């Protein structure tokens, strides 16, 4: 269970859809629990998601119904990737614990999209998404408090009003294994670069690696 936390326009939906695109491309199914009722299929298709393999579920408003819908989807074991786009609040309590167990039993990855303050206790990986970086706050075997930053291009660069070449790479990251510095106070973090890569690219291409 991973949660992507971010404010409006942080790019959390684009990040989740980027993963969905990769999964549908190999023929697997993705379910999107659209509690907010705002998912826009033309934009989803533009990101490379195969709409035939994307099940959109719009349950009545409420946290419990969203959890219930995700539980039904996970129980089928046909959807390895399930996204819950939470309108408000956080997923906790019995409903959250049961959903986590069902997702675990089904070997499914569950991704929660939520506002920054709505931290769920069921998530094992927490990523804070902002327009210029995604911060892994907590993940797997990493000790509590460990943080890593992954710079990426936000969806605004997909805008039809921007030059076309900027639309090509949506999600970009530092080379695998790079230790990422903390940002300076009052300013955004500069993208990290490994020495080898900096030499090879003249210091300008750290944003061209695809997230693995």
């Amino acid at each position, binding site marked *: 269970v991973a949660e992507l936390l971010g404010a409006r326009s942080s790019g959390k939906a684009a990040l989740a859809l980027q993963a969905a695109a990769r999964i549908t491309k190999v023929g697997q199914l993705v379910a999107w629990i659209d509690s907010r009722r705002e998912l*826009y299929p033309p934009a989803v*298709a533009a990101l490379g998601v195969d709409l035939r393999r994307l*099940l959109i579920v719009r*349950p009545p408003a409420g946290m419990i119904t969203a959890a219930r819908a995700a539980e039904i*989807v996970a129980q089928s074991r046909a959807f390895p990737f399930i996204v819950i786009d939470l309108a408000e609040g956080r997923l906790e309590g019995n409903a959250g614990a049961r959903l986590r167990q069902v997702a675990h039993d089904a070997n499914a990855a569950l991704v929660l999209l939520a506002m920054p303050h709505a931290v769920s206790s069921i998530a094992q990986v927490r990523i804070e998404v902002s327009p210029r970086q995604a911060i892994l706050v907590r993940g797997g*075997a990493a000790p509590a408090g460990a943080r890593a930053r992954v710079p990426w291009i936000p969806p605004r660069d997909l*805008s*039809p009003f921007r030059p076309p070449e900027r639309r090509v790479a949506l999600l970009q990251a530092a080379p695998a294994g790079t230790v990422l510095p903390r940002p300076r106070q009052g300013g955004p973090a500069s993208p990290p670069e490994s020495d080898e890569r900096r030499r090879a690219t003249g210091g300008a291409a750290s944003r061209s690696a695809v997230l693995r």
Partner: protein
Amino acid sequence: MRIACFTLPGFLLQVHARSAPHLVGTSFGVLAETEGKVARVVACSRRAREEGVKEGMTATQARAVAPRVTLIDAQPAAYRQGMQAAGEALLASSVTVDVDQLGTAYALVPPRASGHSFAERAIEALRRLGLMARAGVADDRFTAWAATQATPHEQVRVVAHGGSAAFLRPLPLSLLPLDGDVRRTLALLGVRTVGDFAALPPPSVGRRWSETAVDVQALARGEDRRPLCAFVPEETIQERLELEEEIAELEPLLFLTRPLLDRACQRVVGRGRAAARVLVTLRGEGKATEALLAPSRPTPSSRLLLDLLRAHLAERILDHPVQALEAAVTEEGRLEAQELDLLDRAAPSPDAVDRTVARLRAAFGEGAAFAAVLEDRYRPEAAWSLTSFDPSPPRRRRGRATPRPDALPPTAPAELPRAGQAALRLLDPPTPADVDGQLARGATLVMDGHRHAVTELSGPSRLEGEWWTDAPLGRDYYEVETEDGGHYWLFRNHVDGRIYLQGIFD
């Protein structure tokens, strides 16, 4: 820096109740010897208190007033394990935990986390371990602790940042760690609240009246500078459950072992580790049966351990009934995340998909689960429609070339997206927005009652059409970025001249 204090009321009683749940709701007390003298009651349950038992009574006195009271000898090792468990539960959500004394623990609230929700999560984690707690969150240790004492009916009490002194002011002087004589003297002088004490001139107060050599007046002013001493769990994790009645059958035994293994796993995960070897001991009639659970790799899963125990016990015949269960994590290992392979899996069963869609529709309505198909329309709201979810590959037609396996699916756009398709969230219908003055950089956008200063603006991009219908389309689209990081897709409607919010880039 914010500090959360967790107090576990009636801690000694809680420790006994979590290992012997049948004590809950009964009349029982804990006996402890003090300084080699006769054992006295140091804690008693509410029922025992109602029957007349009080702290300080000897066992004889307690039984005289309440013949049915159960008196249990104090178990310091169990109390240490209880605090260890509490510390491990808190470590799962905070980097610094201080297990201060029996029944009290402190944790550093993670930066950017809400104090209230952090405390609620921690209380829930403690509850899963069988411990009930109250929490107080404040800028310093003492105020956080006082918050748990001031309002015992509230599970979580958060003192606002910078509000420690004001919060402490009306609280009774008894909260401060002062000697009884000093407190009585102060009461004679009319000093009755923490605020009264804080207002005394420092030279007349003296700085070290308490036994712990703490500057008590600094505590009263909300300036407790004592740091948290990091708790490092070292003792072997042990959990114990005493049964009210003896059990000899396998299934009830496994049913009761589950919460025991849950607790052990929760604690080991709190340490950031996983269980490599777990020794389960079943005791009864003076005999003990041991089962060593050794998963192939260290695991945080109590379910796996339970399956191993089931397999272990299914091959044995217990020669004694079971009265007590014990689980000890004798060896810990690295907690390694198991990575799922999302991309290389067997094709999903069409029947399973059909059943799922049917269940979703039955639960939430016919239109609740669907797939989307793109429509060749310029109006953004009409550029897609619902269709039934059928992920099976389209049938090939005779005489047509076989599509390449890596070809884009038919629904994916072959061209770059049309205007607006990058707005991942579309509001349907568009919601009206107001602009102070002209829509330009520096203008203020009012949406849903919130004001947003425009920092970037591009457009207009005109969209016109459907002039042959009753509702012709005429819109000038703008892409707007606001000071608070918002990125919106707006349009000015030619029909009524108003600005509408069409979508949000996310």
